[in-house]
């Protein structure tokens, strides 16, 4: 009986921007100076926003939230490749992508501040609200992508999740169904090496997340997630392939969570400062700044100015956020069903009268 090879595969890793700020010209995506400056500006804004949110949280002015510092290259390079009529189906560590989609910082502060009105992302932005349960939202991206294909809209859906999500059953169902139905969806895994405390090697025995694509019959590729040009290039290609009927792609953005999981976590319990420091040196924003300085798009003065401008915008957003009146109790009942049910109407009336009695 002969033994034949039925399948074999290779997994590619794409890098464009080196840590010294030089680029591989052959792989450099076609971005204008204006686009690069705009993307850099958004990344700086996201970093300053994340810093300020952290301070607000420590001061008790904001609830628990997940930081994105160090992952701007991964999720923002990806979201920058979206067109306004594409869809974004996020998890929860994509602040920069949400800003790129046009959401206001004060609205995001409102959400992380515990006011659910902040999650009312306008439907016109085609950006689903933050999804807290890990690894279940990718199926919604598949359904939306099916709908876009059925309607004949030439658009794609980007869904973002972490490497922890790839262990969940719904990752399998989403990848499988996307490939079977050949729908226009791009799966972007921000592999930041840790799911709270669990390191990558304990999450999966696979050498890469990207290779998981092979089993589903779709392309899989790894990119340096701290290299915003590589991420943009690979995601833009995958989105375009999806829009033109070429089906789904899995992209692993290999990055690192230099911060704690959330503001409630203490990552010092499970990893060394040396390891974190190594990754801090691969910072995506600093790397992009080096490139821009060499390309004549940025100098020290402009760099400082952009940070100052970002801080000012953040300060304004914080002021706006803190001026929002607290939600009324009736908000609890407002959106459970399109039309309030008799039972809910009773419960609402009960709680209103209880509140009035207290007053």
């Amino acid at each position, binding site marked *: 009986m002969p033994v034949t090879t039925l399948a074999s595969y290779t997994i590619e890793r794409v890098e464009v921007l080196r840590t010294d700020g030089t680029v591989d010209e052959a792989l450099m995506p076609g971005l204008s100076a204006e686009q690069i400056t705009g993307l850099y500006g958004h990344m700086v804004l996201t970093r300053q926003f994340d810093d300020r949110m952290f301070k607000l949280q420590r001061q008790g002015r904001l609830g628990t939230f997940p930081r994105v510092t160090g992952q701007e290259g991964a999720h923002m390079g990806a979201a920058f490749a979206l067109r306004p009529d594409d869809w974004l*189906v996020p998890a929860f560590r994509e602040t920069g992508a949400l800003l790129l989609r046009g959401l206001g910082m004060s609205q995001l502060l409102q959400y992380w501040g515990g006011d*659910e*009105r902040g*999650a*009312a*992302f*306008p*439907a016109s932005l085609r950006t*689903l*609200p933050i*999804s807290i*349960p890990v690894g*279940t*939202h990718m*199926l*919604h*991206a*598949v*359904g*939306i*992508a*099916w*709908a*876009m294909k*059925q*309607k004949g809209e030439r658009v794609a859906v980007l869904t973002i999740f972490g490497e922890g999500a790839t262990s969940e*059953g*719904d990752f399998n*169902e*989403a990848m*499988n*169904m996307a490939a*079977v139905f050949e729908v226009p969806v791009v799966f972007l895994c921000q592999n930041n090496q840790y799911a709270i405390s669990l390191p990558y090697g304990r999450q999966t025995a696979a050498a890469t997340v990207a290779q998981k694509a092979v089993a589903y019959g779709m392309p899989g590729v790894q990119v340096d997630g701290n290299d915003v040009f590589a991420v943009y290039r690979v995601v833009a290609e995958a989105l375009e392939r999806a829009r033109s009927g070429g089906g789904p792609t899995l992209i692993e953005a290999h990055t690192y969570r230099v911060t704690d999981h959330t503001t409630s976590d203490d990552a010092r319990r499970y990893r060394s400062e040396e390891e974190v420091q190594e990754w801090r040196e691969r910072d995506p924003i600093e790397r992009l700044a080096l490139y821009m300085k060499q390309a004549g798009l940025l100098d020290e003065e402009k760099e400082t100015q952009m940070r100052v401008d970002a801080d000012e915008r953040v300060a304004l957003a914080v002021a706006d956020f803190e001026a929002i009146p607290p939600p009324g109790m009736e908000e609890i009942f*407002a*959106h*459970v*069903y*399109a*039309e309030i*049910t*008799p*039972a809910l109407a009773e419960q609402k009336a009960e709680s209103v009268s209880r509140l009035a009695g207290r007053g």
Partner: protein
Amino acid sequence: MARLNVVEAVDQALRQEMELDPDVIVLGEDVGRNGGVFRVTEGLIDRFGPERVIDTPLAESGIVGMAIGMAIAGYRPVAEIQFSGFVYPAYDQLVSHAARMRTRSRGEFTCPLTVRMPYGGGIRALEHHSESMEALFAHVPGLKVVVPADPYEAKGLLAAAVRDPDPVVFFEPARVYRAIKTDVPEEVYTLPLGKARVVREGRDVTVLAWGAQVRTVKEAAQQLDSEGTADVEVIDVRSLSPFDFETVTASVVKTGRAVVVHEAPRTCGFGAEISAQLMERAVLHLKSPVLRVTGFDTIPPLAKLEDHYQPDANAVVEAVKASLRF
């Protein structure tokens, strides 16, 4: 007017809703070429094509999760879960996302989807094919839970579910899929979700049921009537969520006695909720405690013992007599 069974009535409702609204999509395991394992979706793929009648991979969570995305993007998916005993992988999608997308997004995104599934015992099936776990869904804010008892209801309630702006879990009584035929108008109609139906008026005791148990209760009521023991008012609940406590309370205020019948396990079954509601709304009218006739708090047994698990007309008769004796 044609006499249809439940299977044919559901098929007709789906066919008509798909004719009326091009955004209605049917998806599930074996629903296309095979017409569903119970043949409920028979012929739909020939009429509407594989783009609107989708054979999916074997993945319950995937079916419901994908339906959520379709619904968000403007479609009205009707997902079939082959048996309610296999819905649990999709429970997470229903509870964590379908039920709360409207709340989470403050109404920016909604999930007008229907999840249909055969439920209940009495079909001599394998393990996992006889479950009656509707209470698990009725407990979830944001979901609606509907259980038709006969073909006329199945057609009208399903049409209403498909058109409803919120997610509806639609339990189809497998035991009476083909066992009951009623007159079903050919024309399109809907029955309101959240409204119970007084099937039979009576003075002495109110007996409430849903799904296949409505037939059992009607048998019991007839027996009690012919014996001259009791004049039973029978209420077909139809919708566990929203629950029509107005109709139910009015009936019990009149009769002063209530018996709830369901084949689901007793503890935390929906009968417990009805009993609690009646305590709150009608305690001074009650002449006896609200009694329950239910399945046991056990795993539903396989075929040989199944008849001991299912409440039958005798059990209902005994409970009514106990209520009258109190």
